[in-house]
């Protein structure tokens, strides 16, 4: 199949993404969306935040515009800028402006990574004004009533300098995500990768072992995403221990001793 080209505001999630609710997050998101409240997703990497957003976009039948924030992301990257085209300057909307106009869900991933000046445009959008100031055009853009702002943030590993400010976080409805409990996680892993339940259980056990090591030489334990990766390898015929090493151990650390210890753990388990 040829790759399709889509403009951001026409990117609809067409088939239902697989998502298992851990708590009340779907109900809360629904209620927040109905009341036009912005949403903050907290939680470690790979625990299902992005998948949840895809699921909600499908459920609400809105286009999903995702922006992964990085430390060079400025307000203009979100709002838009003038470009030069054939000797003329032309205004081009940024992803946030597109979402505001089209009534899409705009998901800013890892919001704390973005530069501080982005807050200037996020704040008026995130409270009851729901307007986007476009400074360079001298305009205020009122948000489409179907527009929804969601941001994510990982309280775990960022430095103190990159903490989310109270003035920002107090504008959002916060949903906390964590790795699902063992039973649910095994179900998710097995469903996503197609391995049998017993293998999934073992893999989840291994993930718990790595999570026990958090703070003892590991910055972060294995995420659900990594488990799915490992299980996909296993489903494709790679042996369990090798899959754990390639998909999980090597992904979370470079430290030789830690790798060896994780090898010992996985070879004990299978």
């Amino acid at each position, binding site marked *: 199949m040829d790759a399709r080209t889509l403009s951001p505001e026409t990117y609809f999630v067409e088939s239902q993404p697989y998502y298992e609710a851990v708590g009340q997050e779907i109900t809360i998101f629904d209620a927040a969306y109905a009341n036009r409240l912005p949403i903050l997703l907290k939680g470690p990497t790979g625990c299902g935040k992005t998948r949840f957003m895809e699921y909600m976009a499908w459920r609400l039948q809105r286009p999903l515009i995702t922006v992964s924030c990085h430390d060079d992301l*400025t*307000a*203009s990257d979100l709002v838009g*800028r*003038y470009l*030069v085209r054939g*000797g003329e*300057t032309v205004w081009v909307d940024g992803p946030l402006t597109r979402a505001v106009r089209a009534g899409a869900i705009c998901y800013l991933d890892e919001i704390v990574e973005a*530069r501080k000046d982005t807050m200037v445009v996020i704040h008026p959008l995130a409270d009851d004004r729901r307007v986007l100031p476009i400074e*360079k055009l001298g305009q205020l853009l009122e948000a489409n009533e179907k527009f929804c702002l969601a941001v994510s943030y990982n309280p775990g590993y960022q*430095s*103190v*300098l990159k903490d989310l400010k109270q003035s920002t976080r107090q504008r959002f409805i916060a949903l906390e995500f964590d790795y699902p*409990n*063992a*039973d649910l996680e095994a179900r998710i892993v097995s469903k996503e990768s197609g391995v049998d339940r017993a293998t999934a259980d073992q893999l989840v*056990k291994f993930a*718990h*072992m*790595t999570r*026990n*090591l958090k703070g*003892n*030489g590991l910055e972060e334990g294995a995420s659900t995403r990594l488990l799915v990766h490992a299980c996909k390898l296993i489903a494709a015929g790679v042996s369990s*221990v090798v899959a754990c090493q390639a998909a999980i151990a090597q992904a979370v650390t470079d430290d030789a*001793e*830690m790798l*060896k*210890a*994780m090898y*010992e*753990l*996985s*070879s*004990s*388990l*299978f």
Partner: protein
Amino acid sequence: MQTTPFSVAEFIAILEDLLEVEFTFHKVEELAQAYERFSATEQHYFLGWIRRIATTNVEVAWRFAHRAPKAWAHMDERLLDAWAVHAMDAYDRKGLRAAFKVIDEVDQFARLSHAEAVGAVFGEIAGVLLTFVRGLSGRPLKLTEGDASYTDSETLFLPPVIAEMVTAEDNFALAKAQVALLWAQTRFGTFRHDLDELIAKFSDQERALRCFHALETIRLECCLARELPGLYREMLRLRETLGQSRGSAWLPFEERLVHAIGIEDTIQLLPKAYVTEMPPRLCYEGELRVAAIRETLAKRQAREKMLLRIKLRELIDKAQEQPDEGCAGEKHFEVRTIGDNESLEMELLLDGQPIVPPDDMRQMMTSIVLDFGGIPPDYLFPAGDGEYDPRLLVGSLKDPDEVWQGVYHEDGAFLYPEWDHQRQHYRKNWAVVREKTVTPAPIGFVEETLAHHAGLLKHLRRAFEAMRDDNRLLKRQEDGDNIDIDALVEALTDVRAGHEMTDRLFTRMQRTERNMATLFMVDMSGSTRGWINTAEREALVLLCDVLEILGDAYAIYGFSGLTRKRCEIFRIKAFDEVYSTQVKERIAGIQPQEYTRMGAAIRHLSQRLLEAEAKTRLLITLSDGKPDDYFDGYRGPYGLEDTRKALQEAMRAGIHPFCITIDREAHEYLPHLYGAAHYIVIDNVKQLPLKIADIYRRLTVR
């Protein structure tokens, strides 16, 4: 090097010198004869060790010299090295008697010699195994070298060398199996029953304990077979390789325990096992030491009960702070286990509502569950007001000065290794470092200094302001926030003139961060008394002033000490402290103390520096001379080599060390310590305040 061996007479002379026969009156003639048969290389090797050990203790060296020739018959270099180092470690830690014991029991060391090359040496496997055991669930366990494989329920002990198997891989596997089995004891409730009480019923208690241990091992094997099947297969393989089995008399027990649920099943079988023939100890079985367990258990359970109840109280207090919660009446805690019997996942309920306990509390709950199989109801009553002394909570935060008022102990201090260049090995936990603060002095000194150097300061401030990284507007970029009008006009003219149009038409705001942390390590030794001390303080005042302009993260610590047992680090400004009046008073209060044991100071402050978040880390030492300490041999090459080693450790960790000194002879030793370009000598003390800020600027400028 000499190619012919020493004659007996020559050897006597050397030994007399090394073993200080003049004072110790050891007879070396016989000893020298024992070495006559060795080649020159071998003689040198032995003499090297005797010399190295003699720098630690002459008596130990003498014993070593005595034993070594015989031991050599069944040892090779690696094992003999390990033996000698082990003996010196024992001396460092426990004294002469312990060192003699190691030397005298050389046979025990040698016993392992057939597999010496393949033995799993504790120091080499501890790191991996500790991580391994931490990864398994449950209480965070510690791993230490001991005389056998056993646990006290908090620490796992392993022997120095495990060498029962033929290959290195198998020996490591055996060590891993031992660790896993000890872990299983803590994880699956071996200690949930009072073992003293249990074996008291039998006439031969030792036999009862042994049988209990054997039964428990069977039960735990079954647990491991379920939890860690890979490891269990490995254990069976090891047993098979060694041809070990429990014998047919124990088969019924093995069958009975396959589906065992808990320790009760083991206890039930004990009377029957007691009258059965005792099984051999399996290779991974280790020992069960009731006394060690009893003591640790009692201490931990009292502590955890107290802490948990205090934490519950804190949770209630926090819940009541939230106004909408409504603090209605009695608070009742409950714990619900999720999953099956042995699951450690649990939920804490307050009045029926689940609440999320903080991490440390969750860990404590896990530990309690391991001990009791659940959380006993009386643990779930929140502590009442004043029921426990809050001081009991802060065990480790003792006043560092208090230590010296009572009996000597090393509580609450930081322990660092020290490099013994003669031994060519670290002395473990050798330097005892404590962190203290400086007694503040009136702030007048700071103001006087600022006034005195007003002219210089103005100049410095300007220089530092220029270094500050403000946002820079980059022009003619391919991509950016705004259009660069100049570039656009030019580009359009180009197009009209028929040239190609450039795509560099934008401006972009470039924000650069210095992202640098610097720790100043100030010599507070007695030799700085007078002018040097004043110059140091003045220098710090000026430095702080301009660093505040620059906004770089910085910290200032002083160091001094007397012997290895008392290395003192004086906190003047930590990284997270602001340049406040208190800091100024502390700078004013810097007073010369005693000696300079630099290695320990560098190691400790490197740790502090590594905790600071920055891309570049700089450790700047202000010093007035060589490392030096009182009496215990730190002066001279020992101190220099230790300092050099400490600096190498720091560099490996990504720290850039630099030294500013006023010692004119520094050219002789500083290149050896810091490298040729990483130090600067200031001829005139009075220039220190004038120069230091400038040096910092040159060091950190891009």
